[in-house]
Structures are given as structure tokens and as C-alpha cells.
């Protein structure tokens, strides 16, 4: 039994953390809200760092790594509310599998792509000019126009996309299963970003509870505050276990991925939301000011829960799969 990151993955996490804490911070999220400043690190820097395309084969200029490797990086990205999302790169890498040229374009940054689902906001629509979409059972790459809209969390680059059909090329025919696999991998990476955001929110809350005094002692000594933070801690560690499992399943056990991806999507939504609400509440008055970072995590939580299907649908899917499993 070795259900743990290995040394290489720990090194990867440390390197990603170094890069990302330099390149992005919640303050950038605030700046994006204030005056529409671009999200950070931004597509170019992310691609250049190599972290975004870890799952692209080395031959195409990527990192040749696993989904678990990417999840390890995504956790670090979540901690600083980085954008664009690694979800976009993860899905594109799966959808373009085997297409050396386009993968190389993804890895060198010349293909600026977003993935368009049936309806709902498109993640990282901002700046994208090519769009991956499922048409019938074919995976298609099309041009189009993205209309970015004010989102509760600006770092997700959410927008509506109007596709230019004239421009569409089939990337993979009869590939519905691949599309679904890509979506599941996307859920795993989204959850890993959620894990990072939730665990950072917990850290900030714990630090404040250790320092802030009320009635002559640190507020973290009061059970109301202490237990609220502990409940978040427990959830965060539970989520970490699910993220590792789901990423491992994406790499090693495709049969387990549907259940794992639905479970981790749901758990991530619930955990990040509770972590962010607790972060605001623990900080009292300061926690709901614009200048404090708490609401930036809260915004991420309020948005992420609806991405790649919402939490309610994900729980429903878990139950359907669980029932199907025992009925089989």
C-alpha cells in the first residue's frame, strides 16, 4: 500500500508553488474585479512554465506527465486563485490525444483554446479564439467569438461563445467516450484546484484565529471558532484523499474514474464552499471587506460549484453509479 505522493511529485509541488506564488495571488483576483486587470499568471506564462501542459506528451513539447502530476500542480494553482484554469489544458490534452501537431500548438501556446460544453459558461473563454466542442459524436475544433461576462469570480474567464461553424475541423470522429473521459479528467483537475483553494482558506483562517484576540485570548481558543476550523480541516483532508484517488484512477483505473470524478467534483464544491464561508465568518468584520482576501476565495467557491456540472448533479451521479454498481 503506497497511497501517497512520491518524492518526485513532492518536488513538482514545491516547484509549482514557487512559480505560482510568484506569478499570481488573490490580490490579482481583486485587481481583476476592480478594473478588469488580466488574470494571473495568464495563459502565456502558464504555458511557458510548462506546468499547464504537463499531461501533453514530451514528443509534442509537453511534460509527459500523469493526471496525478497535473493535480499536484493544480492544487498549488488553487492556493493562489491562479487563472486560467488547468482544467482547460487538461481537457484539451485529452481531446487532442494523438494529434501531434495540435498538441504541439497547445504546448507552445500558439493554440489558444477553450472547451465548450452544451450550455452554461465556458471556462477560460477569455482570450480563446479556438474552441473544442462535441458535435454529434465528433470532437470538433472551431473558431468563434467569446463574450466574456462579469463573473462572481473573475479568474475563471467565464463567457458565452458563439461558434463559427464554417471554420470547424473534426479532430476526432466518433469519439464521445474520449469527450466524456476528458470531462472527467477536467473534474479531477477542477477538484484539485478546489483542494488548494480550500486548504489555503483554512490556513488563513487558522493564522487569524491564532493571532486575533477577544476578551483577552486568541479567538481560536473558543470552541465555536476552533470547531468550525476543525470541521473544515477534516473536509479538506477527505477531499485530498478523493483527489488523489480520482487522479490515480484517471491514470491507472479507467473503470473507477466515472465514480471518482463525480465524487471528487461534488466533494470539492461542498468543501471549498464551507472553507470559504468559514474563512469569512472567522474573520468577523474584516472578513467581509473588499480589501481582505476572504471574499476572493468565497467568490471562487460560489462559481466553481457550478462548473463542469453542479454539485447537486454530481451527488446524483454518484448515487446512480453506486446503485448501478450493486445492481450489476
Amino acid at each position: 500500500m503506497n497511497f501517497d505522493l512520491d518524492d518526485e511529485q513532492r518536488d513538482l509541488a514545491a516547484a509549482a508553488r514557487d512559480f505560482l506564488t510568484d506569478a499570481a495571488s488573490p490580490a490579482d483576483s481583486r485587481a481583476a474585479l476592480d478594473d478588469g486587470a488580466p488574470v494571473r499568471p495568464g495563459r502565456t506564462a502558464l504555458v511557458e512554465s510548462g506546468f499547464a501542459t504537463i499531461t501533453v506528451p514530451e514528443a509534442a513539447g509537453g511534460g509527459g506527465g500523469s493526471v496525478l502530476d497535473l493535480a499536484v500542480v493544480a492544487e498549488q494553482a488553487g492556493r493562489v486563485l491562479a487563472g486560467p484554469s488547468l482544467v482547460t489544458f487538461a481537457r484539451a490534452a485529452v481531446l487532442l490525444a494523438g494529434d501531434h501537431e495540435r498538441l504541439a500548438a497547445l504546448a507552445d501556446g500558439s493554440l489558444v483554446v477553450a472547451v465548450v460544453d452544451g450550455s452554461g459558461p465556458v471556462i477560460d473563454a477569455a482570450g480563446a479564439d479556438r474552441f473544442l466542442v462535441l458535435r454529434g459524436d465528433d470532437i470538433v475544433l472551431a473558431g468563434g467569438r467569446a463574450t466574456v461576462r462579469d463573473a462572481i469570480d473573475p479568474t475563471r474567464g467565464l463567457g458565452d461563445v458563439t461558434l463559427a461553424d464554417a471554420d470547424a475541423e473534426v479532430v476526432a470522429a466518433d469519439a464521445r467516450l474520449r469527450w466524456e473521459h476528458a470531462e472527467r479528467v477536467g473534474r479531477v483537475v477542477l477538484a484539485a484546484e478546489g483542494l488548494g483553494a480550500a486548504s489555503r482558506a483554512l490556513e488563513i483562517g487558522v493564522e487569524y484565529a491564532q493571532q486575533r484576540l477577544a476578551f483577552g485570548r486568541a479567538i481560536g481558543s473558543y470552541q465555536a471558532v476552533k470547531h468550525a476550523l476543525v470541521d473544515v480541516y477534516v473536509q479538506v483532508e477527505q477531499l485530498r484523499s478523493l483527489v488523489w484517488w480520482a487522479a490515480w484512477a484517471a491514470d491507472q483505473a479507467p473503470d473507477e474514474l466515472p465514480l471518482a470524478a463525480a465524487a471528487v467534483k461534488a466533494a470539492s464544491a461542498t468543501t471549498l464552499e464551507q472553507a470559504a464561508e468559514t474563512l469569512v465568518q472567522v474573520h468577523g468584520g474584516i472578513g467581509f471587506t473588499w480589501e481582505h482576501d476572504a471574499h476572493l476565495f468565497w467568490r471562487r467557491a460560489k462559481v466553481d460549484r457550478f462548473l463542469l456540472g453542479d454539485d447537486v448533479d454530481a451527488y446524483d451521479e454518484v448515487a446512480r453509479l453506486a446503485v448501478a454498481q450493486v445492481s450489476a
Partner: protein
Amino acid sequence: MDFDDTPDEAAWRSRVRSFLEEHRDELGRRSDQRGFDDQAARRHQAVLYDGGLVGVTWPTDAGGQGGTPMQQAIVDQELARADVAGLINLIGIGMCGPTVIYHGSEDQKSRYLRRLLRAEDVWCQLFSEPASGSDLAALRTKAVRTEDGSWRISGQKVWTTLAHLADYGILLTRTDPDVAKHRGLTMFVVDMKAPGVTVRPLRQMSGGADFNEVFFDDVVVPDSERLGEVGDGWRVALTTLMSERLSLGGGGTEIGASATSVAEHVAAHLDGLPEGRRALVRQQLGRSYVGALANRYTGYRLLSKLSKGELPGPEASAGKLAGTQVARDLADLAVRVLGDDAAYAATADGSRSWQDLQAVLPGMAIAGGTNEVLRNIIGERVLGLPAEPRADKGITFKESLASARA
């Protein structure tokens, strides 16, 4: 048991209602979406005051009507019913004025009270500080007596509603750091236009700026503006806080969005959903709707007490606890049923009311007493559970600062 007015209440209500109908055009509208005009708001309050509808429970010699809390509650209901905008000087009427009435000199009363009720002066309340939220008595703003007997005040206040418009404020300061923290406080009336007072708006996570930070930089306050004795500020502040609770009045009013408006909103979105999802939406609506109903009828119990001349006790805090929770559940549902628009700050047709509400509510669970503090109050003062041991007992304020730094 009935929900009807007594004959006296009915007579008062009818008087209030006809006044509001008659003067409708001279008053602001709550539902008016245009920007806030504070000069107009002052005029509106003056109209209401001249009609006898402001300061209903205040003594007549303070410029009030000498009326009952129930009469005030009826005024609140009728103002809401007639869509009249809230009074600009609500904090002045509910908190500052009563403090002046109890602790002010005759000179202060004659100078301030009637002008306050007519909104010729707007007031604010300067208690909270960055380092003292729930633990108000830990405040640090310093007032030092000068040779001519006046006071020189330095420090910072925060969460001050209306400070940017206010003419006066009641200001709680520390005048003696060498005694236990509750004992070294003194209250003043401060002129908000005095040299050394700086007001800075404080933006909230929702983007709005309903509060301010206020900086005092060697502000001179004459001793005649002291409220109560030197060192007696804590007791004076308790009057203010007690008045706040009594001024709440309107039982059964809803915090945030009304359950009915959420039900309307949900009804409009329900048809597009598959039955399974509809059942989940109904379950969430049902749970928060029951909560909203319970709050409404608990509010009516409070009103019934007022109607009998009783005053609400600490159990009234339960309304805020339950109300903010219901409001959050309702807002969450309202945002969820927006579907594809739920992650955006506004819907495709430009409405942002539900998303804005979602961002305002976390603050409401904190402002006016965190849920934790309210639970302590109910636990100790209603259920009779023992208080926690106090770590700051029997030491001076200065010592507590030193140990905090250690």
C-alpha cells in the same frame, strides 16, 4: 389570540396611514433605484417628524411623541407598506439620541435632540475598532485631558455607518489605561466636521460601501461634550446598545429577500427543470420557507409583547440568528435556479439582485453581533448557562495589551 389591532392601535394606524397618503409625494420611495440623495433624505425625515411619526417613543420634552413601542412598530409597518424610504437618521434616533437623553446635560439635550429628529443633524455611532469587535471594551482610541480641561482624542474607529454624512457622533474612548478595561472608558459627543477627523469609506465584499473607517488625529473635544462621568463610558455605552435592541421594533420583518419574492422567482424557473431536480428545488424552498414563516410568527409574538407594553428581552436575538440563516438559504436557492447565469455577477438580462444579495448576507451574519456572540447572549441570559471564564478579569487594560504582545 388574534392578529388584529386593538381599537387604540387601529386608530393610530389609520392616522399614520392617512398622513402618509396625504404626504406621499413629499417622501422618498424605498423601491427607488436611483442614487441616494442625502439632502432629500433629510427633507423626507423632516416631513415625517412634522407629522409626528419620528421619535414616536421618545419623551415629549426630548421632542418625541411619548408614544409606545407598538405605535413605533405600526409606523414601521405603514412606512414599509407605503414604500416610504428608510429614515436617514435611524442610528441617531435608535442609539445616539437615547444616549443623550439618558446621559446628556440639559444644554446638550436642547442643542441636539430636536435637530436630530428632524435630520437637521445626522448622527453616527463610533464604538467598534479594528482590534475590538465582539470585545468592544478592548478599544484603544485614547482621550487625554489637556490643561484647559478639554480632551484630545486619537485613534481609529471602524464599521461606522453614515460617518461620511454625519454631523455628530457618539464616541467611546479610553481615558484611563491603568484600570480594568471596562472601567477606563468615557463617552463623548464629537463634531464630525472638527479638525483632525478623517472619514474613509470601507468597501465590503459585495462591492458596496455601507460603512466607514474614521480616524481621529488629535481631535479636540470640549469637556462640555462629555456624556456621563469620566470612567463611566461602559455604562453609557450599554444604554446605547440596549436602545438599539429596543429600536428594532418591527417584529416579523424579513432579513434580506422576502420568502414570497423568492417563491415567485423559483416559480418562474421551476418549469424548465426535470422532475427530479424540481423535487430538490422544492425541498430547499420548503425548508427555508418554513423558516421564514416561523420568523414571521415569532416576530408577531414580539409585537404582541410590545402591544401589551412589555419590552423584548435578549431572546429577541434569536430572530437575527434564525433570520440570517433563512435569508442565506433563500438567496442560495434563488441563485441556484438561475442555472447557466448562476456563476455570473448578473443574469443575461442584466439583473444582479440575487447575486448581490448572496454577497451581502455573509456580512449580515457578522454585523450587529456575530452569530457566536448572539449564541453566547442567548445561552447565558435566556437559558441560564454559565459564562466562560474570562481571561481578562482582574487585570488593567495596559497589562492586557502587554500580555497580548507577549
